[in-house]
């Protein structure tokens, strides 16, 4: 049963320890310059990019990415 083939869906990853936009961009979008990769990731992941900032002094300050996040590494797929 588990051999049933799944259709292709939008590609995503789960963050690794210490990940930031830049580390994800360098790892997942190696053909792009870091800043271009970061820009693309942020535009594809508004659910993370638009998140309310962590309070000052928080270990998360300056990095909105949570360990549980889904991070898309490609734009939305065109409707079938």
């Amino acid at each position, binding site marked *: 049963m*588990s*051999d049933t083939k799944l259709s292709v*869906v939008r590609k995503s990853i789960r963050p690794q320890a210490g990940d930031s936009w830049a580390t994800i961009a360098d790892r997942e979008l190696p053909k792009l310059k870091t800043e271009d990769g970061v820009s693309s990731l942020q535009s594809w992941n508004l659910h993370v990019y638009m998140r309310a900032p962590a309070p000052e002094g928080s*270990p998360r300050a300056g990095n909105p990415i*949570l*360990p*549980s996040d889904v991070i898309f590494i490609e734009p939305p797929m065109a409707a079938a």
Partner: protein
Amino acid sequence: MYDLIIRNGTVVDGSGLPGYQADVAVRGNRIAKIGKIAETADKEVDASGKVVAPGFIDPHTHFDAQLLWDGAAKPALSHGVTTIVPGNCSLSLAPLKADHRMRLVGMFNQIEEMPYKAFREGVVWDWETFSEYITRIRKGLAINVAPLVGHSVIRLWVMNDAATERTATDAEIAEMQDVLRECLDAGAAGLSTSYVDMDETLQPVPSRYADAREVDALAAVLGEYGRMLQIVPEFYDPDLTIARLDQLAEMSIKYQIPTTFSPLFVNSDNVAAVDKVMNRVDEQFARGARVWPQVQTRPIDISFSFAVPSLLFIRYPNWYRIMRFGTPEEIKAHFADPENRKARAAEVADAKELWPRLVLRQVKTDANQKYVGKTLAGIAAERGVTPVEAMIDISVEEDLEAHFLAADMGHNNDDKVVSLLKHPRVHIGASDGGAHILSFSTYGDTGYLFAHFVRDLKTMRLEDAVKKITSDTASIWGIPERGLLQPGYIADIAVFDPQTVDRGVEKFVQDVPGDGSRYVRDSHGVDTVIVSGGIAWSAKGGYQEARGAVLPGETSRQPELVAAE
């Protein structure tokens, strides 16, 4: 001789098979016989013209706090609901160290709108472990409870403040596994986690700091017990929902556990989105996974006043901030200031189609009674202002006690919603019973199902509707001996009139400890509700016997045991 006989009803037994005329006899806490019954009983219920069905099971509730002062989860029981699943969305009230109580109260206040004062005046904090919490709620329990344990709470128990700062170490994950085992041994029906909820400081709840290996490790423990994993995905986005359901599917297959995600809404502006999610659900079921989407029956209505931070304003930061963190005096002063009034009106200008159709439901002053029942469009025209300005002005005039209704905000495409409700891989649920108490009533979804989709629209068979909220739910959750009417099964039974069953009009009542209020709906057309063989509620007698059990571990509470307590 039986203890209870329900005579002359139409038995709709939860299997989906056609209803039939028969009597139902109960001895002790179990169904003893179904058919023509010549013997007599201590108690008899005349069900002529009525349906006799298994008690309904509500799989997504937040009655955790209410159960501390109300063992019937009112008014859920009166709607025919005999089993509730609290502890969803990563939040339960146990296990909970004394040092963490106020943090959790803050989360319940933010996410479920349960007032701080209700916890202060309605709760004696005499538990820490899950087992102690179960002991605490068991006294006076009139409804069955299948409680989930919340991932955020387990994280807080093990990691303290670090629960909202970082991922867990291997040792901490191992400790979380042990805590989860203790909770499951004590009666938890599974684990819940959340990918969207925020605490009272608008920061992510602890479960959102967990990495994939932590959730996987906890799912492995669920696999040891075959228990449920419930999640709240980013339900506003189909791609995110699919990513989450794929994660669930992997764990479901790997550990052979049932999983469920809630809610799944129909967005009338993008009906294709729900099809996209359901296609994925179908594919994952075909692989052997169990990933049950929960779909609610009712459309989205939001009631609100300026006195509380309504969900309606959550996407308008300045509105939400002042309502969430301002005192009543500060809120009044803010909106009474002409500059703020202008700025706040501009902030919500994008929803220009929403504000005119809001209805003023309730005010305190005589001067504004003439507007009650009218839309903001109509009131604005009479006052010579915009609808948003009318809403602000009346709220200030009423000391923030003007109540508005935003009806039919979504999930109101009947054709699409009923196609989901009937879908074999959809789980009817997501009522949120006991939550969002200051935004809308979360009671009566079952009445709405029967009244709207079965009786009025005739788009669903009565037998199918009953099956979806009884035996299907019991099977999905692994609740034994419930969900069907058949001899030997536990006698959890709802007797209702199919011609009149419905949910009542939403009303604002003050019945929360600490003079707190909430929106509720009474039941219509429900005659008698039986839990473990005892009449728990009837239209004539109100709330009666308290024989609720903690499921799935505790099959039933014997009447003698309840009497001894």
